[in-house]
């Protein structure tokens, strides 16, 4: 697998805030990545450095083996759809798509028109008069129809209703299947994107908390629920990432794969076993990380664009 992005020890400091803290990662070509994490975790900062819209304080980020700053060879091959994209005051979606068509060499006009239809986007309304969802649709359409070799979608769904989000996910999968490329999608709607993303990167407090195949995470953690004494006895010596109790009943979330024999033993003990979704796992892991490193992570409250 070819590496298209190589990040080494990347750090970004805003005055007293550490937005990225020694991040290292690689991104493979033709893969869909999910970048997950809380607000202010560093997702947007990372994406904007990779797309040359922001500078790193230290460390290195190579895209297609080169530094992206003022580098047309790199920038013409990537597309960054950001949540707070600004457009010229008087421009309409027609203008935005015309500009995109000129810039992106793989632009597919027919696909763009189909998407405009799908999202029922008014083409002659000025962009600043569009609803939040329609504004997001403009970005989503550009991101999809550009067919850039690397496309970043930074929380592209704001204001899109459930139907429109499903259209986005479906079109993304269909088109990706036909035209494989690298997609880097940041999202808070983890359950919605869990089956779309092949790899998951969790960022917390400017650090990489998890960087793995999504499918490998399924079954990575489990909830065991039942009589408090029995649950605690069972959980002894295991890595508990969450624990809650209600009266005599305790629920623990533990890391680690449970084999058939362990599952049978849990059932024989009269305890219940429940699967942990990717969303639950990410929430538990980030809660855990912030509580154990609260002194450093908690100072970062807002992500700076």
């Amino acid at each position, binding site marked *: 697998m070819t590496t298209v992005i190589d990040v080494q020890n990347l750090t970004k400091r805003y005055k007293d805030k550490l937005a990225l803290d020694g991040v290292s990662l690689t991104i493979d070509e033709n893969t*869909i990545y999910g970048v997950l994490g809380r607000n202010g975790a560093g997702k947007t900062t990372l994406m904007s450095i990779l797309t040359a819209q922001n500078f790193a304080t230290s460390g290195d980020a190579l895209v297609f083996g080169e530094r992206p700053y003022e580098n047309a060879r790199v920038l013409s091959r990537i597309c960054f759809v950001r949540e707070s994209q600004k457009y010229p005051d008087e421009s309409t979606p027609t203008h935005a798509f015309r500009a995109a068509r000129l810039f992106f060499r793989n632009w597919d006009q027919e696909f763009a028109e189909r998407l405009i239809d799908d999202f029922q986007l008014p083409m002659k309304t000025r962009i600043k008069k569009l609803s939040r969802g329609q504004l997001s649709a403009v970005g989503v359409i550009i991101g999809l129809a550009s067919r850039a070799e690397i496309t970043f979608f930074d929380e592209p769904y704001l204001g899109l209703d459930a139907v429109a989000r499903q259209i986005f996910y479906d079109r993304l*999968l*269909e088109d990706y299947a036909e035209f494989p490329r690298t997609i880097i999608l940041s999202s808070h709607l983890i359950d919605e994107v869990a089956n*779309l993303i092949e790899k998951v990167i969790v960022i917390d407090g400017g650090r990489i908390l998890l960087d793995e195949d999504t*499918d*490998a995470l*399924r*079954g990575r953690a489990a909830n065991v629920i039942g009589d408090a004494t029995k649950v605690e006895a069972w959980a002894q010596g295991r890595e508990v990432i969450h624990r809650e109790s209600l009266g005599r009943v305790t629920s623990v979330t533990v890391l680690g794969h449970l084999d058939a024999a362990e599952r049978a033993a849990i059932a024989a003990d009269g305890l219940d076993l429940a699967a942990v979704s*990717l969303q639950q796992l990410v929430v538990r892991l980030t809660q855990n990380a912030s509580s154990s490193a609260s002194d450093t992570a908690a100072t970062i409250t807002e992500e700076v664009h």
Partner: protein
Amino acid sequence: MIDEGRPLFLQIAEAIEESILDGTLVEDGQAPSTNELAAFYRINPATAAKGVALLTDKGILLKRRGIGMFVAAGARSILLAERRTTFAERYIDPLIAEARTLGLGPDDLAALLRERSAPIGDAGSTASTEGSSA
């Protein structure tokens, strides 16, 4: 239909196996492509491809260059043999274990199974004959 606790590619492979076992997909017939599976289950095509690869490795599916995926001849009997073993492990073994705690031997279990699996229509008559034999 997707179960959170288990790898998706396994679930995709099992869904295809299920379709072969219940006759929805026939031997030598065309099987869904990776992209069709991805679109239908709304999952990443790479994950669907991994599920399909699992079945080609087992000789359940085969790829015909340029035409697509097909169900291999003999796929059903491979699956039936495999399922028979897992069925015994998953259902019969715990059944025997539970029966033992209730003091039921293999003969009692067999009688119970016959009684329970009798068609609804003649349940009464079967129950009475089972009753007399037990």
